[in-house]
C-alpha cells in the first residue's frame, strides 16, 4: 500500500525479540524463557512443522476464511487462490485503512472473537501485534521455503528473533527521489548524488527563484523520517527478550539527520508543509517543489496526482551520505499476516503464502494495483523492469527502483509501540522542522517522551 503512518518492525538475527507470550512456539520458547535470553538468534523457529498430508487435507475441506484488507480490487488475486483451492472460500472485508484497520483488528483480537483469519499489515505494524502475541508463526506451514523468493530486507522485516515468520511480504517502498528534469535543467542543477550536493542545490535553486524549493520535508510524515533514518544506518529501536526494548532515537546518526534537515529548514531553502494535503498536491502540480523524496509507490502515485506535469519528472536514487556505499530505506508497503485466533490456521497460512508468492498473483498486484513488487522473480522480470513510463519521459522507472531496492539494509527494526513513536515524533521533531526550531534538541524530547511511555507500559528500557 502506499504509505502508512505506523512504524514497524523487523529484523532478523540480532534481535531476539520479545517472544512475548508466544505460547505457540512451544518448546523452544519455554526453554529460552527459563534460560533467560539466549544469545543465539538465527535458529529456526521451534514450532513443529505441519505435515504435507495435513495441509492437503485441510485445503480440501470446505472452509471460509475472512481476510481484512484495504487493497482495492483484491478480489482478482483472491480468485486465483480460490481457483486453485476450490474448497476454500475467502471473504474479503475492508475494515478501513491504516490506523482504522489496526484499531478494529486490535479490538477484535482483544474481544477474543470476530478477528479475521488473515489481515493486511504494514511492515512497521508487525511488532505492535507480535508484542501482544496476536500473530501466528508461519514456519510450521512451510513459509520458510519462500525466503529466497522475497527481497532480503523484506524477509528481515517479517522475521522474528527466533526465526519466526510473522507475515508474508506483499509490496514494498524502497525510497528514491523523483525530480523535475525541466527545473533542474533551467537552473543548471545536476541530480545530486550526495546529501551535500543536495543541500548546495537547495540553496542555489531557492536563490535563483525564491518561489521554488528543491524539496519539501513534511513535519507530519514520520514514515519518511524513519525511511531516511534507515538509509543513514540508524538503529533507533531494538527489542530483545520479553519486554526489553532499547530506544535510541537521538544517537549520532539521528543527530546528523536532524542537523541536516533542520538546518535546511531554518535557512528557508526547503519547504516544510504537511504532505498529502490539498495545498501540497497543488504545490506539486504548480512546480513549487523540484523534487519529491518518496518511495517506489511514488512514481505511479505522482503520475495520477500531478497530471499537468507529465513528462517532466525523472527518478533517481536518494542522495547518499557516502557515495561509495549506496543505501536506501523503505517507506510503505505491506504484508499479509495470519491472526493467531484463526480456527483454520493451515488454510489461512497457505492463503497468505499463495496470495503473495504465487507468480500470477504477485504479478497481478503489480499490474492491477500498481504495487511495487516484493518478490525477486518479478523484480527481475524484463516485462516489469523494461516498462518505459511516459510520465517520466520514457525512463525505465521500475528498473531504477528495483536497483534501489537492493540497497535497502535488512536489519532496521520497528518498536512495539509504533503509533506512539510516530505521534511523539510529529509533536517534537516534526513540529521543530515545521517551525524552523532546533530539530536536534527536539530529538532529545522525542527520546525522553518515548522512554517515559515505554516505562509506563512496563518495558525495561535500555537507553544508550
Amino acid at each position: 500500500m502506499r504509505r502508512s503512518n505506523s512504524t514497524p518492525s523487523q529484523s532478523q538475527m540480532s534481535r531476539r525479540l520479545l517472544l512475548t507470550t508466544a505460547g505457540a512456539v512451544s518448546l523452544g520458547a519455554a526453554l529460552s524463557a527459563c534460560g533467560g535470553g539466549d544469545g543465539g538468534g538465527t535458529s529456526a523457529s521451534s514450532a513443529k512443522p505441519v505435515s504435507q498430508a495435513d495441509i492437503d487435507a485441510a485445503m480440501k475441506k470446505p472452509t471460509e476464511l475472512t481476510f481484512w484488507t484495504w487493497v482495492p480490487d483484491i478480489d482478482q488475486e483472491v480468485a486465483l487462490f480460490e481457483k486453485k483451492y476450490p474448497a476454500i472460500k475467502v471473504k474479503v472485508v475492508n475494515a478501513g485503512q491504516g490506523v482504522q484497520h489496526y484499531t478494529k483488528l486490535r479490538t477484535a483480537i482483544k474481544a477474543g472473537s470476530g478477528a479475521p483469519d488473515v489481515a493486511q499489515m504494514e511492515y512497521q505494524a508487525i511488532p505492535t501485534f507480535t508484542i501482544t502475541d496476536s500473530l501466528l508463526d508461519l514456519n510450521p506451514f512451510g513459509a520458510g521455503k519462500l525466503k529466497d523468493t522475497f527481497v532480503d530486507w523484506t524477509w528481515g522485516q517479517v522475521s522474528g528473533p527466533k526465526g519466526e515468520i510473522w507475515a508474508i511480504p506483499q509490496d514494498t517502498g524502497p525510497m528514491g527521489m523523483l525530480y523535475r528534469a525541466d527545473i533542474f535543467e533551467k537552473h543548471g542543477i545536476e541530480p545530486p548524488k550526495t546529501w551535500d550536493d543536495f543541500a548546495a542545490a537547495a540553496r542555489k535553486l531557492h536563490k535563483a527563484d525564491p518561489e521554488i524549493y528543491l524539496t519539501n520535508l513534511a513535519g507530519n510524515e514520520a514514515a519518511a523520517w524513519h525511511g531516511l533514518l534507515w538509509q543513514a544506518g540508524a538503529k533507533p529501536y531494538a527489542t530483545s527478550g520479553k519486554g526489553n526494548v532499547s530506544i535510541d532515537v537521538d544517537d549520532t546518526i539521528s543527530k546528523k539527520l536532524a542537523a541536516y534537515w533542520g538546518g535546511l529548514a531554518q535557512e528557508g531553502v526547503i519547504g516544510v508543509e504537511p504532505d498529502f494535503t490539498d495545498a501540497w498536491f497543488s504545490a506539486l502540480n504548480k512546480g513549487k517543489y523540484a523534487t519529491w523524496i518518496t518511495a517506489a509507490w511514488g512514481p505511479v502515485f505522482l503520475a495520477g496526482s500531478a497530471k499537468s506535469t507529465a513528462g517532466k519528472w525523472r527518478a533517481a536514487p536518494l542522495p547518499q551520505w557516502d557515495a561509495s556505499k549506496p543505501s536506501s530505506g523503505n517507506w510503505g508497503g505491506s504484508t499479509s499476516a495470519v491472526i493467531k485466533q484463526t480456527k483454520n490456521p493451515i488454510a489461512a497460512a497457505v492463503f497468505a503464502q499463495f496470495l503473495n508468492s504465487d507468480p500470477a498473483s504477485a504479478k497481478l498486484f503489480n499490474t492491477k494495483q500498481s504495487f511495487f513488487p516484493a518478490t525477486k522473480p518479478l523484480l527481475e522480470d524484463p516485462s516489469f523492469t523494461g516498462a518505459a513510463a511516459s510520465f517520466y519521459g520514457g525512463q525505465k522507472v521500475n528498473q531504477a527502483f528495483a536497483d534501489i531496492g537492493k540497497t535497502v539494509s535488512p536489519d532496521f527494526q520497528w518498536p512495539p509501540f509504533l503509533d506512539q513513536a510516530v505521534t511523539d515524533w510529529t509533536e517534537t521533531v516534526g513540529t521543530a522542522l515545521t517551525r524552523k526550531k532546533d530539530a536536534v534538541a527536539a530529538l532529545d524530547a522525542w527520546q525522553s517522551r518515548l522512554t517515559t511511555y515505554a516505562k509506563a507500559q512496563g518495558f525495561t528500557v535500555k537507553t544508550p
Partner: protein
Amino acid sequence: MVLFLLMFLAPLGYAAYLSLFREKLIGGNAFVGLDNYVTALKDPLLRQGVLRVATFFVIQVPLMLLLALAFALALDSGLLRLARVIRLGIFVPYAVPSVVATLMWGYLYGPDFGPFAQLSEKLGLPVPHFLSDGWMLGSLANIVTWEFVGYNMIILYAALRTVPQELYEAAAMDGAGAWRTAWSIKLPALRPALLLTLLFSVIGSFQLFNEPKLLQPVAPDVIDNAYTANLYAYSLAFTGQQVNYSAAVSFFLGLVIVIFSYAVLFIANRRRTS
C-alpha cells in the same frame, strides 16, 4: 427500562469500570483504584486541553448565540424579504456534515492556494495565516459558528412562533414599537430556548473534536494530540493504547461538563428569581 439500562447505563458502567484498572503492554492488567483520576488531575496536557475548550466556549458561544438570536428576531419580525430563502440559507450549513465542512474550510484557509490567500495576494495585502498558532482557535470558532448558527436559530425561531398572538396585540395596543416588542415580549419568551441552546453549546464546546481532528493534517504543528480534551482522550486510547487512562480522562471531562452546565443553569435561575 431494560433498553435504557442496556443502551445507556451499561456502556457508562463499563467505562467507569475500565477507568479503575491499568493495563500495560508488558505486565498485564492491574486494579489501581482511583490512580488514573489522580494522574488526570495532575496531567498538564489535560488541563491545557480543558482550558483551551473553555476559552473556545467563552469566545465562540456568545458570538454564535447572538448571531442566531439576531437572525431569529429578524426572521420573526416579518420585515425581511425572501425570509424563506434566508432561513434556509442560514440553516443549510447545519445539514452539511461537519467532516465535509471542516475539509472545505481547511481548503479555504490554505496559506498558499486558498482563495483568501490568493485574494489578499492579488490586493497586495499580507496573507492571513488562518492555520497558525495565534489564529487557529479563531479559525475553529468560525467553522463551528458557521455550522451551528442555523441550528440555534431554528430553535429560537420556533420558540418565537409559539408566542401567543394576543401578547403582540396587547403590546401594540399599549403603543409598543417593533424594538420595544422585541425587548419586552420576545426576549423573555425566548429565555427557556436560549438556555437550552446555551446548554447544548457547553456540551458541544467541551467535546470539540471533529474540527480540530480534521484540521490536524493541514496544521500538524499547531494541533497536537492534546489540543482539546476530547482529542486527548481519543489519542490516549487509540495511539497510546492507554484505554484505562483514556476512560478516566473521559469521565473527568464529563464531570467538567456537568459542573459547567450546572453553573450556567444556576446563574440563569438566580437571575430569574432576582
